[in-house]
């Protein structure tokens, strides 16, 4: 199966290991992986701020970049949602509406792709430690992904998964929200970190690096020891 990696801008720059791990896992599972080189940002920051003309300009670039891809696998549930759910809305009644509608069904979040498209549950990963899983809101509520990452983690040898009470509660990142309303964003993150602390897990795993940036930033500031890892980074361990 030919698969194009969609590595969002902040993953490219801050968490390249996530992309590396994704490529490893996908190649190990026999996918032919490519990385359309022109990719930059999905356009979510201006979109979420209400600047839809600007968002269309950036998103239009993505549409071109991925025009030839058959399957697009995103490292982030949120950026995947942007392409899958919001592009059709963003380009509604514009010239590019057709392209937006065409690309939407090709976009998959990583865990959902593995479980639902490749039909894999056990990727042969080994990782020792206790971990808790954070559901990124976009993945959870826009894409309906809840079971898939847990299925994959259940089959990782040596990993013990402990659910936190606030798994489905937003971490408070929310893109530009996190810097426009830092006090609220931080309070939300603190609720998340308290819930993580209750589980005594060593690792916090998610399928969204943007949430993990917020959570790790707070964990570090609060002196909590838990480390954040993207699902792909766990699945790549053998």
């Amino acid at each position, binding site marked *: 199966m030919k698969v194009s990696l969609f590595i969002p801008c902040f993953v490219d720059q801050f968490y390249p290991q996530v992309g590396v791990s994704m490529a490893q896992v996908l190649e190990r599972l026999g996918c032919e992986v490519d990385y359309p*080189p022109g990719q930059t940002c999905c356009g979510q920051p201006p979109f979420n701020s209400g600047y839809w003309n600007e968002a269309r300009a950036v998103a239009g670039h993505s549409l071109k970049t991925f025009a030839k891809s058959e399957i697009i696998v995103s490292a982030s549930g949120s950026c995947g949602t942007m392409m899958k759910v919001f592009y059709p809305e963003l380009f509604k009644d514009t010239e590019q509406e057709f392209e937006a509608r065409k690309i939407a069904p090709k976009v998959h979040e990583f865990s959902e792709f593995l479980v639902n498209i490749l039909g894999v549950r056990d990727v042969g990963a080994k990782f020792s430690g206790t971990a808790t899983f954070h559901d990124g809101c976009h993945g959870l509520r826009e894409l309906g992904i809840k079971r898939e990452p847990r299925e994959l983690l259940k089959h990782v040898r040596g990993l013990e998964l402990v659910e936190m009470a606030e798994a489905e509660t937003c971490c408070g990142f929310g893109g530009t929200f996190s810097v426009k309303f830092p006090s609220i964003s931080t309070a939300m993150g603190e609720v998340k970190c308290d819930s993580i602390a209750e589980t005594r897990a060593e690792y916090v795993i998610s399928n969204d690096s943007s949430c993990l940036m917020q959570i790790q930033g707070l964990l570090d*500031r609060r002196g909590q020891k838990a480390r954040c890892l993207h699902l792909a980074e766990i699945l790549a361990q053998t």
Partner: protein
Amino acid sequence: MTAYAREFKRMAARYTSDLRHRGLIQRALKGYETKRDEYKGRYQNWSEARQAASEIKWEAINHLDRHLAEFITKIEARGTRVFVAGTGAQARDYIVGVAKQNRVRSIIKSKSMTAEEIGLNEALEHAGCTVFESDLGEFIVQLRREKPYHLVFPAMHLTRDEISRLFHDELGSEPTDSPEELTMIARRVMRKNYCAADMGISGANFAVAETGMISITENEGNARLSTSLPKIHIALVGIEKIVPRLEDLALFLPMLATAGAGQPLTCYNTLYGGPRQPGECDGPEQFHVVLLDNRRTELLADPEQRDALHCIRCGACLNVCPIFRNVGGHAYGTTYQGPIGSVITPHLRGLQDWKHLSASSSLCGACTEACPVGIDLHHHLLQNRRNAARERPSLSEKILYAGFVFIMRHPVLYRLSTRLAPVFFPLHRLVKGTFFDPLRAWTQTRDLPVPARQSFHAYWNDKMSNRKARHGGN
């Protein structure tokens, strides 16, 4: 930034730093969640029920003219006086007028957010009437001269100790730490007021078009007393409260209770179809229904967000909203708090003044998931942001995004910027967290990730050239 936005940010900062307050709200709502899930679990199919509720409200709102006209005809036929008010001021004037005409001095009121919306108590007090809030939570916040904290739980921000002190100071009661004793104190005070009131004022949860009745949902019995004993009953009803058929209530009443309060059904669900009818032994001599527009038609005129008028004011979206759970109800500065308030307030009170509430959301979608009538709440927040920026863009964001677009449309520039980040990162350490830190909004409370030495893009390029070299070597 408008004065409202500044005030919201100030209040949000104050409430989020109050850990005791946050703990109180989170604990109270945990209890609600457990009960709500238990009763939702008894439904054979909650999502189908939700779907049906959404469709019924769609029908009601999208044929509002027809259903409202039917409601008026039917309820007037039983001697009810209907007044249609275009604005809050017209509704207030009418109600004050009825009070004056009938020489009303004492008014007993059961909980109504619509009355809050139009500042009815203030208008009546200004006209020389005394207004007693009869719902326990409303009574408490009235004694504190505060606004309700939550659509459904007006006093959820207070502990029993605070309420005991309040009752001691205002009513002269003995201090107690028993919620039951506190409730009985309020009961005793209110009993006198019911019996002496000249007029009762209520809101309504539903208005049934086909039979011409209003439906009021409550637990305490205060609305029933307020609408049974006084000689005059005035119900203030938003025009969006319409449901087409009586039997629709068989669905809405239990869903409202389960979604809103974590109950299978609230204690009293009462239908009022007129004043005391011939052959009836009690009930008011006059029954007035005031139907209120107050810019609801502006929301109606926006087909994209028209479904926000489906709202049955259950409060479920507040209860699950992580913003509400951290800033609380008083930070919003609106009649309607939480996600539904953030969606509709810009329509009811001006987009530019209230757009900050739509911006103040992580768009997590917990509200939309919780809404029993399926309002697309968090997407409406996005649409409000778009409408606000389209109508009056901010210069700084315009400039910011112009630069952003330019870089993101040119992969070469984008990659250059990613190479610059590691260079700037050590410099950033010098100013981190200080006034000069451009990333201060983040770094004051959170650490920043360290930019990687090699971006994924660079990694992939290396990998590809190695692969080519290997293949070339073979």
